[in-house]
């Protein structure tokens, strides 16, 4: 599934990195420990988190993740947005909690 399809299906907010909406989603990873994501997320995965620091983008880029979803109406910090545009990886948002949004995405990806 492409990131853009997921945005449409779940009504996600797109903060930045529209270029990245064309990326293919290969699975998901839910974690707020960036060291954990750095060690264990796989390329193409969608990352669900509440962290908004610009290091989020650095790690998404390093791991070649397909997109980031910020939960609970959290908003990315300004320098995080700038890096998202630069890297072409979208930062998305939802008002739901990590548990709910992860569950919905899991179901959509495993239909």
């Amino acid at each position, binding site marked *: 599934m492409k990131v853009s399809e997921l945005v449409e299906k779940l009504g996600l907010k797109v903060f930045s990195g529209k270029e990245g909406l064309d990326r293919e989603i290969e699975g998901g990873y839910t974690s707020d420990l*960036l060291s954990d*994501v750095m060690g264990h997320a796989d390329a193409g995965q969608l990352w669900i988190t509440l*962290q908004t*620091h*610009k*290091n989020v983008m650095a790690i998404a880029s390093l791991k070649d993740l397909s997109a980031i979803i910020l939960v609970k109406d959290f908003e990315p*910090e300004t320098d995080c947005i700038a890096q998202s545009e630069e890297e072409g990886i979208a930062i998305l948002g939802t008002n739901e909690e990590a548990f709910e949004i992860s569950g919905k995405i899991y179901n959509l990806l495993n239909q």
Partner: protein
Amino acid sequence: MNQFRADLHIHTVLSPCGDLEMSPTNIIRAAKNKQLDLIGITDHNSTRQCAVIQELGKREGIFVLCGAEVTTKEEAHCLAFFETDEALNNFQEYLDTHLPDIKNDPDLFGYQVAVDEEDEICYEEERLLISALDQSIDKIEEKVHALNGIFIPAHVNKGKNSIISQLGFIPMDLKTDALEISKHVSKEGFLLKNKYLKSNVFIKSSDAHIPELIGEVFTIFEMEALSFAEVVKALKGIDNRKVITE
């Protein structure tokens, strides 16, 4: 130049996880027993126990840096120290403003009390001090430096509540005055795995929550005298002052 032995990360009875034995008298006594010259008082998100210890330290010949161990929004622990009462009080207001209003449950987390020199309780903090502030690490660093304070990410080698566990790596543009490592690693061992940090100054401290562990590990400050300005010079490595860490 003189060498001073420092342990800049010590909790008191005010921290919920700090032992009730961590009173001003016991802390200063333990510091003297361990031949420390310089200690840092760093309770979780509060500076309210420090003044009494600083005053007692003055009489007993222990130089006390007042500060706190701040929990950033990302849940990274960072040490902050201030030279003047005015700066310290200003920072306390900042902590009061940005700590969420979650009540402490002493049965679950421990007591959060400040005591006077006679160990009489003179203050109880109602809000849970181990919560995270609603401010990012960058914002907190800016605030500390705006007050001419010292900003040191704590126990950066640890797998929890360290800037590296929370943010994956230390952002190049974060203005730190030093990085703290815990007793579990040597500076050389840590740098083997984190080569990008080799130009940083490191301190090692105990993070003591009980008197017996105060000064278990320490940092040597090579400087002229015991003062806040000299500590800053040693951290910056200027005028031949320096910091020596194992």
